[in-house]
């Protein structure tokens, strides 16, 4: 067994030192009826790398990789190119196989990258401070809602009609468990500003998204104003972090809390996880924040160093009075994000965002030219919704046969919302002109 260093001799020697007859002695406290004799049923015994790799490769081969052909799925996760050095950095033993930096003297590598990450996220979102990441965008959104109720001592949260439905569901679930009322506004392609009308003086926060699930970009400043007018907070959500290079960021719109998904920068698609939730807020709210925070300090010699800080908010100190039960961040995904962002730099991100936008514009033009297609999203960054004259699921299945992964049917995300003929699609820097032409041609063929 290649992963177990003890030899039979070692085991015998150690039992002798301990004074036990066999390892069975250590399990004496287990009720007799619960002792498993032999090994568990069904699971085969240990196998070598070659056998395991064959099995797993067969499973992998049954999936169509995004890079293997024209690919246009977005809606909360995006196919971007990640530089090879990022993967090399996150595979570095000292980053990959270490723990939460609770012993800062031997964890400055992790801590300094977290401090750099926090600074980057704050700058990208144009917010005062950011934490060291959450599980993903959706759980960050849910935590933001709860944080807003703590900060305002109010118990009502209002969700826009363009908020990603998975984010809305996660938020509802967390809130309702805690007795927080959640109001979901009607799903709408261009309805973020409706939040402004919905706010009342019971409202803890309004949660709007830009670009939203339909790709629509919206200046949420009027929503922020309306919220602040009623003593409520604005939570501004994004699922496409690359958009921050080009689109008005939360901080410029007056958001109090900005949350979003960081997958697009540094992280692969991974079928939905692990991803990395970005969480930022105004200075005033910092002590209400959930999640880990890394702060600057000095060591006994006066040298600059970094530590996890404000942990009195956290559950290992506060237990039932913690701001959240979360005790991991998305460490390695955070490192991937910050490493990729460091390679990009501000200028690089801006250029990347422009390339994404241009690809989406080209895609929209090409699809709009297909008779019967109607582009529904009025203002977009790198994704948009369009209507087809046929059932979207059927269209996607036929595109699939043509080797094209054409997007997500809106009815998968918004079942029962009469969006059976709507497709959400995205383009990125990975989208080529050939991909776009192939999509348009296939669509023309189909409808």
């Amino acid at each position, binding site marked *: 067994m290649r*992963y177990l260093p003890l030899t039979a001799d070692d085991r015998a020697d150690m039992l002798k030192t301990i004074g036990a007859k066999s390892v069975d002695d250590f399990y004496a406290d287990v009720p007799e009826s619960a002792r498993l004799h032999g090994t568990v049923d069904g699971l085969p015994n240990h196998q070598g790398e070659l056998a395991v790799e064959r099995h797993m490769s067969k499973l992998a081969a049954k999936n169509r990789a995004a890079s293997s052909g024209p690919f246009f799925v977005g809606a909360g*996760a995006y196919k971007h190119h990640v530089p090879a050095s990022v993967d090399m950095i996150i595979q570095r033993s000292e980053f990959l196989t270490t723990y939460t930096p609770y012993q800062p003297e031997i*964890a400055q590598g992790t801590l300094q990258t977290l401090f750099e990450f926090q600074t980057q996220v704050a700058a990208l979102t144009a917010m005062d401070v950011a934490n060291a990441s959450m599980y993903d965008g959706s759980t960050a959104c849910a935590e933001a809602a709860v944080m807003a109720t703590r900060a305002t001592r109010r118990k009502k949260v209002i969700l826009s009609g363009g908020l990603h439905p998975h984010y809305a569901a996660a938020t509802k*679930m967390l809130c309702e468990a805690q007795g927080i009322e959640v109001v979901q506004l009607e799903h709408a392609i261009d309805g973020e500003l409706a939040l402004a009308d919905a706010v009342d003086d019971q409202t803890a926060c309004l949660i709007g998204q830009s670009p939203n699930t339909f790709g629509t970009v919206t200046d949420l400043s009027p929503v922020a104003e309306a919220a602040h007018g009623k003593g409520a907070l604005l939570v501004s959500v994004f699922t496409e972090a690359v958009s921050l290079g080009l689109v008005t960021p939360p901080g410029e719109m007056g958001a109090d809390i900005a949350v979003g998904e960081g997958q697009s920068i540094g992280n692969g698609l991974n079928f939905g996880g692990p991803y990395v939730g970005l969480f930022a807020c105004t200075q005033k709210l910092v002590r209400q924040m959930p999640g880990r925070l890394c702060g600057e300090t000095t060591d006994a010699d006066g*040298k600059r160093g970094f530590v996890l800080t404000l942990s009195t908010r956290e559950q290992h100190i506060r237990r*039932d009075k913690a701001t959240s039960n979360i005790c991991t961040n998305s460490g390695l995904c955070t490192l991937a994000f910050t490493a990729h962002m460091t*390679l990009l730099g501000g200028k*690089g991100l801006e250029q990347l965002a422009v390339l994404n936008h241009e690809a989406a514009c080209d895609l929209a033009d090409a699809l709009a030219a297909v008779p019967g297609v109607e582009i529904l999203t009025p203002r977009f*960054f790198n994704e948009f919704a369009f209507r087809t004259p046929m059932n979207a699921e059927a269209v996607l299945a036929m595109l699939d046969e043509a080797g094209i992964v054409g997007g997500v049917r809106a009815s998968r995300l918004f079942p029962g919302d009469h969006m059976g003929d709507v497709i959400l699609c995205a383009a990125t820097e990975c989208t080529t002109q050939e991909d776009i032409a192939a999509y348009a041609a296939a669509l023309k063929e189909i409808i």
Partner: protein
Amino acid sequence: QAEGLIFEIGTPETTGVDLPAPKGTKNRLGGVARKQPTGLPGLSEPQAVRHYMRLSQKNYAIDLGLFPLGSCTMKHNPRLNEKIARLPGFGDIHPLQPQATVQGALELIDELATWLKTLTNMPAVAMSPKAGAHGEFCGMMTIRQALIARGEVETRKRVLVPESAHGTNPATAVQCGFIVDEIKANKRGRVDMEDLKAKLEKSDDIAGIMLTNPNTCGLFETDIKEIADLIHEAGGYFYCDGANFNAIVGRVRPGDLGIDAMHINLHKTFSTPHGGGGPGSGPTVLSEALAPYAPVPFVVKDADGMFRLVEDIEGVASESFGRMAAFHGQMGMFVRALTYILSHGADGLKQASEDAVLNANYVQARLKSVMTAPFDGYCMHEALFSDAFTAEGIETIDIAKALIDEGYHPMTMYFPLVVHGAMLIEPTESESKAELDRFCDALESIARRAAQGDEALKGAPYLAPMRRLDETKAARKPVLKWEEPVVAPPVAAE
């Protein structure tokens, strides 16, 4: 050597990526455009690689040595798992691709679920929780949903939590709208059954119990079946914190102990890398009683052999408590965990548990004469010591920091709370006897110095990349991001 921050090294003009020039298309943002540039610096690739490599050298890691953090299960991370997770068929697929194009991914989730159910002898598992605490949350939400179904969610609010519990347990209970009622530990480090029974005298407000087993003292809860019976008799549910599952995999199936829900830390027991604080993954196994309330999404296999995601609260999922997060769980961790499980197999998983427990008992045996073992008898996969043996003025933290100078990561300090100045040592099955002997020798020598009151310990570490850091200063006026230093204006000539 200090490594500067990227903000001090880089410039906003620099970039470490080469992108094609934009075409200059007129934008369709409708004016919703960023006004202020981010101002973030970039680094060329050589600079970036060097920055991260140098920073990495300031970290300790399992790949470099023993990492005996109790309750964290810092075991070896096989590299095959990393390789497999990077196959394009796993790493490069989108969660919302048509399901016909991701049948292998769905099959993988189903296969991993099968083995988790097999190893725990539980009938159901929720795969989507993103970490241990998220798994706890999942478990407690299913209990809440079951109480809703029973019409008792407003009355059954009380959750019993032993004082030795992980801090996340009470936090989770509160997050689910429950009230926490602490129960005491007895002198053997287990649940005090008298206290438990007293707490259950009034039983109509009992939602359940949250118990870690093996518990945070590294001990198996001897009375666990009786506890399960008592809770069930009281009309409550039994949540088991599975953080310490590594001690018993292949030897004990939690389903045989009467539990209703237990999360499994894939990043502990099944060795997905801790990555400096995540990502984790916390699938939660459920009993028949709780299975109907499991969160969406989950994978089902249709009659035609196709795998399908149930994503909405309808049909088979109509009693589900809802959705915990976007998409379908930590696929990247699933791939690694399944690779780990298949590599070890039934015999290897059992042997790993036994070796983990053997290693912990060996450490306990080697050190109990110089340090204070608060409870008699064998331990499970972690050895607990208190600070009773130290001289006045020497604390647990001093021993921990002194270990750094010996080339080791410290053990878990001051946890569990039931023991004064706790030191919780979990060597895991990944250590050889030679490695353990070196570690015990080092700790033994530190313990002797601690007993003698060696003041030098208070200054440790001396040999680490940094000396002790001032955490109070960090918290007093938090500096949470880098800011451009304010340059003092030149003094005007008089």
